């Protein structure tokens, strides 16, 4: 029973990672590419780690899988935000079908020096 469950989770996780990479290849601009890749790949890695923890229910494996999942859950969001901020402030071109662009026109205002 557990091998069927973890097999399904492996397939689902790999499928989500493949979906993330399809989004990376097919989406039209930087921000959409990023949201496709980060969300789908985080969920895919979570599925893979859950399948691993179900297959080998030992304490050391489960603890490591849980800590990898927690770490990726935190850092993927932070990394995506930082890259999005940098590329949006750098005046990255958006897709021509974009409806709302809340960036002020002209060069971006400089932040106070840190």
């Amino acid at each position, binding site marked *: 029973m557990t091998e069927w469950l973890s097999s399904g989770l*492996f397939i689902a*996780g790999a499928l989500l990672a493949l979906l*993330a990479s399809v989004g990376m290849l097919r989406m039209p601009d*930087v921000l959409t*590419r990023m949201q496709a890749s980060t969300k789908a790949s985080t969920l895919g890695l979570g599925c893979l*780690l859950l399948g691993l923890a179900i297959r080998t229910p030992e304490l050391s494996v489960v603890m490591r899988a849980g800590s990898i999942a927690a*770490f*990726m859950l935190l850092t993927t969001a932070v990394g995506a935000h930082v890259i999005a901020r*940098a590329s949006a402030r750098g005046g990255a071109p958006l897709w021509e079908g974009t409806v709302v662009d809340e960036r002020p026109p002209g060069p971006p205002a400089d932040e106070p020096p840190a």
Partner: protein
Amino acid sequence: MPVLTVSIAVASTMLAVAAGMTFIRLVKGPSLPDRVIALDLIGVLMVCLLVVTASATQQQALLDVAMVVALVSFVGTVAYARFIERSRS
């Protein structure tokens, strides 16, 4: 247990195809942020492949390697973001 063998083989193949497609974006990517997020996704896919390999070979040390790869990939992404923001001005 043949079910797990088949599913691990299929998952590894799909992850390899995903890494190849991301590599196309890494080469093609029109701007620097495109390449940075492609590199970030390749790092995540590498962690995924390490997890699948750890399950296939029952080597727990590969999980430690996966954690280190995740850490280094995050630090690299943040450093690239700082570099992009600095090089704008």
